[in-house]
């Protein structure tokens, strides 16, 4: 798939003393774009700007050539799904209700919901109060919801937090499945090794500025990483996979 799906040009966003951008990027169908960087670097803000949850102060975003400013909320939700960092249901929605909410913009909903619940083997969670789930179960349900929305791209804000190892593998597997089905993923990850593992391209942010953007193996190099974090890095390449180790910074 070589068709450009999402294109952001010279995005900027300012609030109080924080300034994000300018950020330009493009995502093709079936591409996984990773967003990395330290805390407070503007990763989540960038995601929200791309989802039109925050209006940029400058720049524009197009999806298949159409400016998202001109799209209806319904049309935008058919293009982009959102997996937020956390979801809280203050009024006791069940897992089933949360999944129903995620497919709000879809036609013919209910029979599909049961199929999805079966496919992910979460029948026992179906009627549970969403808030009573463990952190990992919540994440899984939210991810299923985002996939279930059946949009062209999913924008994920740290889908791997609070997860046990087995659930973490499942999440990474699902991201690959989404990509293999020709849909795009933009994903914020803290873990550099996970970025290396599943992303085609990576954009690295620090204090709102783009430090590097490009193919994963070109971006995740010691020189770039040392600009971003106060640590030293060693990168090993073996049989097509990459391993990044971080050490305390040598005092010069």
């Amino acid at each position, binding site marked *: 798939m070589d068709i450009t799906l999402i294109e952001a040009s010279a995005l900027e966003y300012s609030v109080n003393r924080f300034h994000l951008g300018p950020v330009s990027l493009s995502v093709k169908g079936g591409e996984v774009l990773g967003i990395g960087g330290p805390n407070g670097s503007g990763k989540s803000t960038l995601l929200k700007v791309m989802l039109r*949850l925050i209006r940029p102060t400058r720049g524009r975003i197009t999806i298949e050539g159409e400016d998202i400013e001109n799209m209806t909320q319904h049309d935008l939700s058919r293009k*982009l799904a959102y997996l937020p960092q956390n979801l809280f249901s203050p009024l006791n*929605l069940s897992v089933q209700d949360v999944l*129903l909410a995620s497919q709000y913009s879809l036609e013919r909903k209910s029979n599909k919901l049961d199929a999805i619940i079966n496919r992910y083997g979460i029948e026992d969670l179906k*009627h549970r109060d969403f808030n009573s789930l463990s952190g990992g179960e919540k994440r899984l349900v939210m991810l299923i919801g985002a996939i279930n929305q059946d949009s062209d791209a999913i924008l994920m804000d740290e889908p791997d937090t609070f997860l046990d190892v087995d659930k973490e593998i499942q999440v990474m597997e699902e991201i690959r499945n989404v990509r293999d089905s020709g849909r795009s993923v933009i994903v914020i990850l803290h873990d550099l090794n996970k970025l290396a593992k599943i992303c085609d391209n990576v954009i690295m942010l620090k204090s709102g500025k783009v430090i590097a953007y490009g193919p994963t193996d070109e971006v995740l190099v010691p020189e770039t990483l040392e600009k971003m974090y106060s640590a030293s890095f060693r990168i090993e390449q073996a049989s097509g996979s990459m391993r990044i180790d971080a050490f305390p910074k040598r005092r010069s």
Partner: protein
Amino acid sequence: MFKTLRHFSTSERYSKSGIVFIISFVLLLIVAVSSAFIGVVYISPEEVTKIFLSQIPYLGHYFSAGINVAHQSEIIVYLREPHILGAVIIGAVLGVGGAVIQSVFKNPITEPYMIGISSGAALGAVLSIAIGLTILGVYTLQLLAFIFSALIVGLIYFFSLRSGRVPIVYMLLTGIAVSVFVSSLVAFMLYNSPNLASTSEVFFWLMGSVDTITWAELIPVALLSIASVFILSLYSKELDTIQLGEDYARSVGVRVESLKIIALTLVTISVSAVVSISGLIGFVGLVVPHISRLMHGGSNRKVIPSSAILGALFLVLAYDVSRLVIPPKVVPIGIITGMIGVPFFIYLLRKLAGGYYAD
């Protein structure tokens, strides 16, 4: 009903939802009809039944022949029936209004009054009496209560606007602040006005009462209420998504700002309308949605209809109690809803909630 519910696991709660709906609806019918048998003037059950039957369109005249005393018929038809139906409508509107407001504000401790409805309506009511306004006819108080209620909500909404959006916490805080200001105005007028000292009408209104409702007041209010509640129930899916956060609701395709305007407008219209004829009946809007959620889970597809039924049931029962505590007096119903409702709710919370509100 609640005893059995306590033993429901969450999934049983879902599968038994239908039965619980039928039971509560039948209970409402029974309670509403039997309420007509209670009152200061004793009318035999046989007579009451005859009077009921005589009101059936086309067939009624077959039964009216047997009615002994004409004024008994008037007591039932012009007093008890509008009061009981009034309680049904008011209870249903307050229950649904509460469910909707709690969803929009994503907050379980909000209720319709918090967006300025109660203080605005009180201002209108007290103003009409304090100035002695009668330009709008016999229903000046009701009309002014309705108008001021809507005005104050509008004002709060306007104050909360921030570049085209209304941040909901901002609106809640503005609502509380403006309500306190308006309530101070009301208190000042009450303190300062010689007109008010001579009338108990305003005090009855402030305490909440269904005992003065007439058919002429009830019919327009009922029409507005039924229409609003019906339209609100069509938005239950959208209200479910907004509970999960406005950003999330937008991302799944909900037009959040329009939803908020529609929901707040309909709640304001219906709650202002019922408050204008009954005065301030507290607690129903806060508690009934919670009882509904404990019975049916959190989705508004069930919470809205259930809040309508349970709100009506609760208020009719409260009305019965208000007529039975110190006969022949009728205690203002707002006093009863507080006195019975609060202990009942605390009991229910402890018995039913389990881990529901743990954090």
